[in-house]
């Protein structure tokens, strides 16, 4: 128990780091996160009533909590204000940041920028339009050109000159650490996730849980069957080929599994789905799409055969790479054990081959194959992305790719975190398996470092 807690203490920070990384990436991406949340009617007002659009934008941003600081703390320079996060308009913030990097004088910059904004939102004549353009200009030379060309009121002109004259870029060199406390976007998101609220998909406004759970069920089913089958077949095959090594069966299996191991699963899946699921070649044996519809009243036999019919090829394509890999590992491990004296002793005292293999060799040789569970789980989940896409299965991998292509960050973040959690669970299971296979592991005196070369 203590051992598991220790492992958990190492692995939980990994999950935390993953959450920071995913959240950071979603913030780092160069796109306006509010744009999707604005209602269509508000979005229409962008040209004829910029002030109303600005209000709608701010409201949407506040609803999403985007006016809060991003993280608990920030490293920055003395030139930046504490309240940078309150500027929610995405392009305007980028422009102001860029100007700040040039001039380093925030108060003067605000006088200028607010003056321009005031004009842009209140006047609709040519001056207002010029001001609207100025709001998005970050190049000082272009700004000066624009100011010289258009008749903006003199306060704005003067505030620009003041900004240019009283530039203090030296402030940028002064490092400043700011602490924002728990009222920040990351904290809010993390507490939501931990309490089970994964947010709302920006793509179709459905709750993320509603999208993920059905998908997770299919992915878990697919990968569960694949792992089970792979272990079920690979353990005896590996043990017996190791025992009868050099024999005809061993050579056959070794070559076969080397070939299978090098055969890219997504190619095999593409070929199978082209040749066996379409009438193009006359072998329309399996359905192309989905997991199959089963009517409510149908019996278990219909249910089973329908599912089997639909899932046979995907499971096959998921199983064989891990099967090949596992068998080779099992064979290697068993071969090392079979050369040892205790096996000879067991044989000499009259135990049968099968008793020796299963009673003595298996347990000692199962070490690497247990470790592999930890690395197999994430590999399988990643592998099932393509299999799900190729066979059109409504699993998590397809959901992830669709979400990532449409920058549906709530879904992407939830799936990535879920995957991280599953990976960590896999590692923990492998550790537990170690413990069961070899009770010495985790004891203070044992050389875990030797037994677990990572």
């Amino acid at each position, binding site marked *: 128990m203590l051992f598991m807690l220790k492992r958990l203490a190492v692995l939980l920070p990994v999950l935390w780091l993953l959450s920071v990384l*995913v959240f950071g990436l979603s913030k780092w991406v160069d796109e306006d996160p509010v744009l999707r949340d604005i209602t269509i009617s508000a979005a229409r007002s962008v040209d004829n009533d910029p002030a109303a659009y600005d209000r709608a934008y701010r409201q949407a941003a506040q609803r999403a909590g985007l006016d809060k600081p991003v993280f608990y703390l920030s490293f920055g320079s003395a030139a930046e204000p504490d309240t940078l996060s309150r500027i929610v308009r995405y392009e305007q913030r980028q422009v102001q940041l860029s100007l700040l990097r040039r001039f380093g004088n925030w108060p003067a910059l605000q006088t200028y920028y607010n003056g321009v904004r005031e004009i842009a939102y209140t006047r609709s004549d040519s001056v207002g339009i010029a001001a609207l353009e100025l709001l998005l200009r970050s190049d000082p030379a272009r700004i000066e050109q624009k100011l010289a060309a258009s008749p903006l009121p003199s306060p704005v002109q003067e505030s620009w000159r003041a900004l240019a004259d009283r530039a203090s870029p030296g402030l940028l060199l002064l490092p400043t650490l700011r602490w924002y406390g728990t009222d920040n976007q990351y904290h809010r998101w993390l507490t939501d996730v931990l309490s089970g609220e994964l947010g709302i998909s920006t793509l179709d406004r459905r709750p993320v849980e509603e999208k993920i759970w059905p998908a997770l069920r299919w992915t878990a089913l697919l990968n569960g069957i694949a792992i089970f089958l792979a272990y079920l077949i690979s353990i005896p095959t590996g043990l017996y080929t190791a025992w009868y090594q050099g024999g005809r069966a061993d050579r056959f299996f070794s070559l076969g599994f080397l070939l299978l191991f090098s055969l890219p699963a997504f190619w095999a899946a593409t*070929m199978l789905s082209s040749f066996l699921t379409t009438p193009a070649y006359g072998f329309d044996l399996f359905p192309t799409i989905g997991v199959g519809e089963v009517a409510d009243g149908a019996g278990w036999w219909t249910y089973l055969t329908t599912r089997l019919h639909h899932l046979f090829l995907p499971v096959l394509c998921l199983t064989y790479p891990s099967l090949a890999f596992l068998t080779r590992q099992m064979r290697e491990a068993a071969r090392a054990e079979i050369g040892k004296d205790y096996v000879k002793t067991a044989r000499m005292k009259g135990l049968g081959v099968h008793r020796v293999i299963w009673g003595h060799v298996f347990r000692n040789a199962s070490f690497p194959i247990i470790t592999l569970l930890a690395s197999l789980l994430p590999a399988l989940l990643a592998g099932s992305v393509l299999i799900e896409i190729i066979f059109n299965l409504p699993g998590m991998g397809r959901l992830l790719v669709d979400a990532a292509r449409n920058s549906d960050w709530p879904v992407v973040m939830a799936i990535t975190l879920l995957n991280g959690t599953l990976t960590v669970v896999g590692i923990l299971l492998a550790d537990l398996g170690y413990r069961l296979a070899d009770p010495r592991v985790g004891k203070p005196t044992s050389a875990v470092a030797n037994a677990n070369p990572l």
Partner: protein
Amino acid sequence: MRWSRIRNSIRSTRGRRWALGYLKVLVIVAIFSSFLANDRPILASYAGEIRFPVFREIGEIFSGPRPYGDLPGRSWRKAETDWAVWPPVRYSAGELDFANNNYVSPFEEQKIETALERHWLGTDQLGRDTLAGLIRGCRIALLVGMVAMGIALLIGLLMGGLAGFFSNDGLRAHRHRAWSFAIGTVFGIIYLINNFLPYANGWSGWIKYPAAFIVFAGLLGLFQLLFGFPASFWPWWRKEISLPIDAIVLRIIELFNSFPTLILLIAVLPVIDSPTILTVMLVIGLIRWTGIARFVRAELLRIRQLPYIDAARISGFGQLRILFRHALPNALGPVVVALSFGVAGAILLEAYLSFLSIGLPEDQVSWGSLLQQSRAQPAAWWLAVFPGLAIFFTVLSLNVIGEAVR
């Protein structure tokens, strides 16, 4: 392991020799891909002068003399040359052939003028030649495999080398120095990113990078002076401690291994604005170094105990010199195993990503992107079979060789 033994074991069976031969052919095809598939002749006599149209792409890069000559507005295929030496495949990867579009099979009748203009392996929907795509894909695959694993090798050798050679007791320093160095490094990096580089943003040219380096070094010195020097008057701070670099590296490896990197890659790569092949190579290298680091670490843990290292130490060589000149070169044998599997993995990963059309630019032809086109038209078997075979044989050969060295 000795190099000669590695070489012998690679050449020991017929299968391994075939694998090696296949890889050699692949490298040659990758290097000379412009001469094998091109919509320009290698050598042509046009309007009375000899030209080398095939060098056009290279010539444009180096903008030297132009022996390749220009043919504005018309393709070389339609040009009236006196004579021309064509590449075996008379199409470039990605070149559209409208006469033969909409999935022309290799055995079908094709709308071509001479038999030498055949699309030997068929075309895709837009009439792009499959064989030309395969040849170009060969270059992409090997480039990704080698560069990505080169990056991984660099990181892996450094991390594994430090961890294995110094272990937990080899790297010793006085406590005040170690701490001020560590804090200075962290602070220096943050300072450069948050303060100095924004400040130097307006500076012209490359001068800001050496300046950044000087600032960083200055900060390290400053910390040494402000924190390390005063602290050195306390005996506790003056004590010599050993840096547990092995434990740290192992932790980092574990961290990388327990990250769902592939999922992260699929999640993040689509949002990168303009993906280039370099991004993909860099990302693959950054996530695939752990295997190499583990091999190097394990090997160096053994080597550091050997007498010749002690001898070098007694002779007064510096630690780093012993590590890089004496210890690491002997640890490279097992790295070949990791490298060979690693290149296979990187090629697979690139095919996987371009199959998902993630990562590589849209117009970049690669094995994975060819394979992906077959999904739109299952009847076009040539688009599924040939790129897949290319990936399969490459991965198989690399695995066979990795297996042989092991």
